[in-house]
């Protein structure tokens, strides 16, 4: 059976041994786990394994095909890079949580049925929570609570969708779902929450920047890309994903421009990059889907690299606010260089990884005649260069010298960043090996045509020109010690106020009711007392005369009524 063990389970089961190891042995052990899982993955043939029969359902715990292979591969590479980056820490909670989190994401990718997917889906939610709480401060605690509520909501929707799906079709295999049925819609929403669709997105920008230096790097790799994988598996060619994705590429960049917390800027740009992938899934052509997978692959590396560089800045200076940073290239030249490689990659500069993957999606949009979507994607490409490509390195490492002088990042962080940077450049320069493992047919696309390189350089350099002009004329908004209200305002402030006000009203209404009831009861008691008490009118002995009088009245009334 070990021959058919999910690579995800190697990380999860392996995590249980971590608390019993110490020092270098523990570090080596943690680094070895993704390597063992990687070995397991590349030796597995395509097919379905690890079948478990429960009731009359068949769970497929390990389904290897072209699509799950690529995502499993990049998840394990990301896990390895993250663990190198986190080698300096000795925090059992974070180490175990990161292993279980990465393992759950890998396990979910290889889930052949919806029940297995659900179990690992919840695994990623719960394990990742501890990476946020590991910051061990009040802000992180609050953000973590909001995060887990939203993640569990996604899980509940997924479970509801699975139940409906099973009762309607009798199937639990995880294949194409579509949004035509109720089950399809429920599961679509569950995936949409994790993929940070517009209005369902804010958990990402709220929680990721509150995690630890290393935790944010780990978080950036898995949850959202798992959602991209599940959408590609279940909803390829679902038309509504095109406008959803286009919106995701565009609106976060406005926030990214004015956000002061540089890790939050990266969270907004993460949301923007997911948009490109979602558009690719919505278009649904082979070129587009290959583009989505390739972009997820490249994105995981360069986004981790960018978060690593900002994590190193936070680790050394104790702050990650643009308003407090600047001039750090003097203290952290290596980190600066690696950050610039990540920035060039996310901006899709020729010779860097983003260029060879994003181009597939944009070319697919052109192919299928999505004019407005294409314009939005170009806008988003210019915008991402603006806020991730220029703003992040500029305000952290250049701009006005903040006077901060610190040591360069620790060696293990530098090594992780160096490997990531080399991968970004290698994929950018020589994309063929990546293209060859893409799942949807052979890739004949060549990103390095003169036309494509020149037009992309025009787009990017004129964006740089706009930044230069805006900086020189003083129009560019300065980094301010401010936060920006986003959709989370609706549950953090409006929802909170509504809940508190409703609670207060309910309390008022209840105490009013209690008061009225007491008054009524007291009044009733007094009335009873008045009528039936010792002095009460009804307690008196009644004279015979008055009885005869009332009998006469009654008879008279009867007489009158009988004549009417």
């Amino acid at each position, binding site marked *: 059976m070990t021959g058919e063990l999910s690579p995800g389970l190697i990380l999860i089961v392996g995590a249980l041994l971590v608390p019993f190891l110490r020092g270098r042995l523990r570090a080596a052990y943690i680094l070895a786990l993704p390597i063992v899982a990687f070995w397991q993955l590349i030796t597995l043939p395509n097919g379905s394994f690890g079948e478990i029969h429960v009731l009359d359902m068949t769970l497929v715990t390990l389904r290897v095909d072209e699509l799950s292979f690529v995502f499993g591969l990049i998840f394990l590479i990301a896990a390895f890079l993250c663990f190198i980056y986190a080698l300096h820490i000795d925090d059992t909670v974070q180490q175990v949580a990161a292993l279980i989190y990465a393992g759950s994401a890998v396990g979910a990718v290889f889930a052949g049925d919806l029940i297995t997917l659900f179990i690992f889906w919840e695994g990623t939610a719960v394990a990742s929570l501890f990476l946020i709480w590991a910051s061990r401060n009040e802000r992180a605690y609050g953000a973590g609570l909001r995060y887990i509520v939203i993640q569990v909501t996604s899980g509940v929707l997924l479970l509801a969708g699975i139940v409906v799906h099973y009762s309607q079709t009798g199937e639990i295999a995880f294949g194409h779902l579509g949004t035509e049925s109720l089950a399809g819609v429920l599961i679509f929403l569950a995936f949409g929450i994790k993929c940070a669709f517009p209005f369902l997105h804010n958990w990402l920008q709220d929680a990721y920047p509150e995690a630890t230096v290393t935790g944010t790097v780990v978080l950036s790799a898995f949850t959202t890309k798992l959602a991209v994988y599940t959408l590609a598996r279940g909803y390829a060619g679902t038309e509504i994903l095109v406008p959803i994705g286009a919106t995701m590429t565009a609106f976060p*960049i*406005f*926030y990214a*421009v*004015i956000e002061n917390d540089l890790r939050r800027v990266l969270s907004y740009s993460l949301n923007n990059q997911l948009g490109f992938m979602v558009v690719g899934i919505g278009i649904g052509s082979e070129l587009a889907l290959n583009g989505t997978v390739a972009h997820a692959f490249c994105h995981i590396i360069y986004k981790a690299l960018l978060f690593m560089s900002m994590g190193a800045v936070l680790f050394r200076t104790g702050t990650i606010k643009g308003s407090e940073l600047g001039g750090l*290239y*003097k*203290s952290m030249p*290596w980190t600066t260089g690696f950050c610039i490689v990540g920035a060039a990659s996310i901006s899709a500069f020729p010779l860097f990884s983003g260029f060879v993957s994003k181009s597939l999606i944009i070319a697919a949009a*052109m*192919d299928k*005649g999505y*004019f407005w979507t*294409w314009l939005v994607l*170009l*806008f988003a490409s*210019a*915008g991402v260069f*603006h806020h991730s490509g220029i703003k992040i390195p500029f305000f952290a490492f*250049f701009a006005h010298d903040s006077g901060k*002088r*610190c*040591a*360069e990042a*620790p*060696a293990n962080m*530098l090594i992780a960043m160096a490997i990531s940077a080399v991968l970004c450049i290698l994929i950018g320069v020589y994309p063929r090996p990546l293209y060859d493992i893409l799942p949807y047919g052979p890739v004949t696309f060549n990103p390095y045509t*003169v*036309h494509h390189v*020149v*037009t*992309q*350089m*025009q*787009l*990017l*350099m*004129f*964006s*740089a*020109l*706009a*930044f*230069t*002009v*805006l900086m*020189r004329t003083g*129009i*560019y*908004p300065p980094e*301010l*010690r*401010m*936060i*920006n*209200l*986003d959709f989370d305002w609706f549950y*953090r*402030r409006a929802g909170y106020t509504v809940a508190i006000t409703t609670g207060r009203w309910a309390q008022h209404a209840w105490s009013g009711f209690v008061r009225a009831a007491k008054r009524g009861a007291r009044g009733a008691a007094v009335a009873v007392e008045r009528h039936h008490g010792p002095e009460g009118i009804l307690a008196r002995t009644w004279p015979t005369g008055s009885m005869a009088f009332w009998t006469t009245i009654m008879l008279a009334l009867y007489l009158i009524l009988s004549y009417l």
Partner: protein
Amino acid sequence: MASNDAGSEMQSPERAYWLDDPHNVDRIVWTVYAVCALLLGADFLIKPHGPFAIEYVFGFYGFYGFLCCFGLVIAAKGLRILVARPEDYYDR
């Protein structure tokens, strides 16, 4: 690669960096201008082949990129008026 936390603040006087000289910053800015001009010139060399007519407009990608970024920053500045709050907004 420094792995030593201590000591860097003790260095004095600090080394002068190339970017500390404003003339060098000007040089970078002029390089950006020059590269943009060259790229615009390169538009004569390439033949658009896409399905959208707008691609055939001279220098479309450059002008569109510039306008997008300019518009983005102006719009974001406006957005700040609407959504910016003090840092302790949610703690109050």
